[in-house]
Structure formats: structure tokens, C-alpha cells
């Protein structure tokens, strides 16, 4: 049993990790907490729902459409809501992000109503039996997709020129500009990638927990944020590790301690983490050299 709890924890954690990547990349590069990020997941879910159920298209088309839509949405949110605030106080940006979050939720409420919609699995993967353990297809799909995305993302950041630009901007915007890096473009790209990943996370989540409502993004958004902080906000491997850790902790507490208390346990772990190691598992202490 333990193995299957662990696997479903990893699979849940992989979803958190995908969302956490968006939080952490945006934080690293734009130095802001994009609290509307969780709601992009919800938008991704609704778009996939609309394409697959209302329009009756294939699951993969729904996935692709949802990624494209969320990517554009992320760019638009940054351009319209956050870009005018560059250089403004962090509090103004944070409050704006909360505003954007409510805006997305309420637009979804207007269009789709408050009742949650049931999802049919977009993509069906057969389950696999290894010895006495049955691994559900969803778990395989989620873990597989997440692993591929994380590898591609890591390669992109470390090998491509745009990835170098992102690393440079996250460390020193001014110096990056002196290298010829277009900071605005780099921030846009970061929002695009983060939102695209949120769409993927949204769809994987809806495949595992098949219903969606206007507030579906909130809780996973918060947990992914915890995952990002847990792993060390601003650190990409940290977000991956933090996501998986939070997913596993949540699932194992549900299985062995209490279903009701599992969220409390997750949040308590964040508090302990912040007390013991405020920079997170892989977070770097900012060392300033004069």
C-alpha cells in the first residue's frame, strides 16, 4: 500500500511542482509574487473543458489549445497589470496580483456559473501492474509529462540564449541590460512559460480529480506556493523538489494520519520550514559582495 500512496503523492506533487515552477520563475525574474498564478490553472482547465466537452474535440487538441490560451493570458496579465507597476512598491504589485486573481475567478463565474463541471479524462493511459502494485494510468501520465517538462525546462534555462538571459535578469537586471538583454521581453517570456506550465498542471489535475469550478485553482495555487517557498523561492530545482515533497507529505498524511488534518500538516510544515531555514531547501542566501 505504501508504494501506491507514495506514487500518487509523487503524482500530486508533480502537479504542484509544475505550478510552483511558475511561481518561482516569476519571483526570480520579476521579483514579485504572482498570486493570480493559481487561477491560471483554473482557466486552463475551463479552456480544456470547453474545447473537449463543448466543442467535442480530441483531448490532445484541448491540451494544446489550453496551453496556448494560458500562455497568451499570462503575457497579457503581465503587460496590462504588472508592467505599469515596474518600480512601484512591492505591496502595490502584490495587491494588484490579488486583484487579478479575483478578476479571473469572477470572469469564470460569469461565464461558466458557480456549479462545478465534471470532466471526462482528456487523455487515457492504461494502468500498469507491477507485482502486486497497480499504477493508475493518470499517475503514469502525470509523472511522465512532468518529468519531460522539467528536463526540457532545465535544458532550456541552462543551454539556450534566452535561458541565459533569464538567469542574468534574475540576478541583476541592470547588468543584464548592459549585456544587451531586453528585460521586458525576458519577463514576458517568463510569464508565458509559467502560465503554459500552469495550463498543463490544470489539465493533469482535472484528469486526476475530474471536476472544475471557478475556485479550483485556489488551493493548488496556495500549495504550489508553499512548495516553491519550501524548495527555496527563486530556485528552479527547488520548486521541483518542493512540489514533490509537499505532494508526498500531503498524501501520506491523508493515508496515515488524517484526511482532515492533511492541509493543516502541509501548512504547519511551511511554518516550521520558515522558522528553521527561511531560504528553503535549495534557496540561496543573498550574499552581497562590495
Amino acid at each position, binding site marked *: 500500500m505504501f508504494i501506491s500512496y507514495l506514487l500518487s503523492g509523487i503524482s500530486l506533487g508533480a502537479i504542484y511542482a509544475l505550478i510552483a515552477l511558475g511561481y518561482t520563475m516569476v519571483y526570480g525574474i520579476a521579483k514579485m509574487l504572482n498570486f493570480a498564478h493559481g487561477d491560471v490553472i483554473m482557466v486552463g482547465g475551463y479552456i480544456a473543458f470547453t474545447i473537449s466537452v463543448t466543442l467535442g474535440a480530441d483531448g490532445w487538441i484541448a491540451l494544446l489549445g489550453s496551453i496556448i490560451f494560458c500562455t497568451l493570458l499570462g503575457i497579457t496579465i503581465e503587460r496590462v497589470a504588472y508592467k505599469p507597476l515596474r518600480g512601484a512598491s512591492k505591496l502595490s504589485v502584490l495587491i494588484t496580483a490579488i486583484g487579478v486573481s479575483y478578476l479571473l475567478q469572477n470572469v469564470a463565474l460569469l461565464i461558466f456559473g458557480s456549479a462545478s463541471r465534471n470532466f471526462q479524462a482528456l487523455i487515457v493511459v492504461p494502468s500498469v501492474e507491477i507485482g502486486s502494485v497497480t499504477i493508475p494510468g493518470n499517475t503514469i501520465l502525470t509523472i511522465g509529462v512532468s518529468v519531460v517538462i522539467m528536463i526540457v525546462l532545465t535544458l532550456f534555462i541552462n543551454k539556450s540564449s534566452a535561458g541565459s538571459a533569464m538567469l542574468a535578469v534574475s540576478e541583476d537586471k541592470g*547588468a543584464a*541590460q548592459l*549585456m*544587451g538583454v531586453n528585460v521586458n521581453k525576458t519577463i514576458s517570456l517568463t510569464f508565458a512559460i509559467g502560465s503554459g506550465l500552469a495550463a498543463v498542471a490544470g489539465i493533469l489535475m482535472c484528469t486526476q480529480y475530474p471536476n472544475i469550478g471557478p475556485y479550483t485553482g485556489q488551493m493548488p495555487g496556495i500549495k504550489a506556493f508553499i512548495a516553491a517557498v519550501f524548495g527555496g523561492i527563486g530556485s528552479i530545482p527547488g520548486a521541483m523538489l518542493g512540489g514533490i515533497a509537499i505532494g508526498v507529505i500531503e498524501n501520506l498524511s491523508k493515508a496515515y494520519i488524517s484526511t482532515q488534518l492533511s492541509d493543516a500538516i502541509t501548512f504547519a510544515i511551511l511554518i516550521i520550514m520558515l522558522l528553521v531555514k527561511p531560504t528553503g531547501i535549495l534557496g540561496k542566501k543573498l550574499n552581497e559582495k562590495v
Partner: protein
Amino acid sequence: MALLEVKDLEVSYGVIKAIKGISFEVNRGEIIALIGANGAGKTTTLHAISGLIPIAGGSIEFDGKDLAKVPAHERVMHGMAQVPEGRRIFSQLSVWKNLMLGAYTRKDKDGIEKDLEEVFHRFPRLKERRGQIAGTLSGGEQQMLAMGRALMSKPAIMLMDEPSMGLSPLLVTEIFDIIKSINESGTTVLLVEQNARKALAIANRAYVLETGRIILSGDADKLMNDDSVRKAYLGES
């Protein structure tokens, strides 16, 4: 025609005017020193030239082109590189990656490879440490990395901000020798320094800044012998 021509430049921070209308020019092949005390506006002037801060008045022409509408990140492509104050290397990235970011706007792979070899030739220590995380380098090595990084963009002009800051006297001499040799291989240099003696020793001409105004200018060796300069900036009485 001058490579860099600054006319009546004004820069403000809010209501405070940091630069109150200065004009100077840098000709191709020269080393020009901008000297002055802390707070005179030297770094502000360099940041205005590289576009990191907006100008409030006047104009900056580079290679015959008005830079008013050219954003900071595009100025690199026009042949301008800055070695910023405090070096500002990317401390979490490797030495190699820092150098490659210097060549960020370039597309000519062979040229980049060739210039990388040249930088490694000029700074052998960077070659030894190419895989090392830049934040772990010593201060002098970081200064060399910042200079190498700037050279990787193949600049026509290098803007250098306080390269001697925080370095031992021995290293300062080494850094100034390097600046001179960079200049000799064809790069124009605009040098901002508090260490007026060292700066004047390698510069062709110099401008003395005081609270946002140029109060004195001329050939470096003349300024070196000017009484007021000797008193105020060379620590002699």
C-alpha cells in the same frame, strides 16, 4: 568627429539635479578620464551614457547617432560596453557563462570563439577558472571577469566605472596596465575613477567633475601638474 559626444547633459533624481549640464567628447582611440570626488556625478554620467538612467536634458551622440531613443539593451549592439561599478558580475553563474553573456547580442559564432580565446589570453586566470562559479572569484579576478565580459561584446568604447575600487595597490597597477593594453589594441576607453593619480597616468585627456559640473578639463599630464587638481585630487598640499 568624436566617437562619443555628450552635450549639455542633465540628469535628475526626483527634484535633485545630479548632473547640471555637462559637455565632453571622447575621440576614437583615446582614454578619457572622468575624475572627481564621491558624489560628483561620475557614475551617474556613465549610467546616462549606457542608458540605465534616463536623461533630463541635453544629448548623447554615439558614432554620429543620437542615443535618446535607443534603449539601454540596444546600446551594446552599437558598440558600447560598460564595466560597472562594483563589477556586477553574475555571481551565481560560471565564469564561462558570464563571458558568454557578454557576447549575448552577437550571432557570429566563430568571432565569439576567437574573442573568447583573446580574453583568455589576456586573462589567463579566467581560463583556469572558466568552470568556476563567478561569486567565488577574488575581487581582482572578478574585476578581470567584468572587463573580459565587456570585451566579449567587441565594443568600440568601454565605459569603466571605478575599476580600482576595493583592490590592493598591486592589483590596481595590474588593472590599469590591462586598461592601457585594451586601449592599445583599439578600444576607446572612458574611465571614471576616484584614484585620480592612476587615471591621469594612463589617460590622454581628462575632465574634472564637481557636484554635477565640469570644472576643469584638458590634457592629462597638464592636469596632473595643475595646482588645484594636485590639491583637491592628488592629496598634495
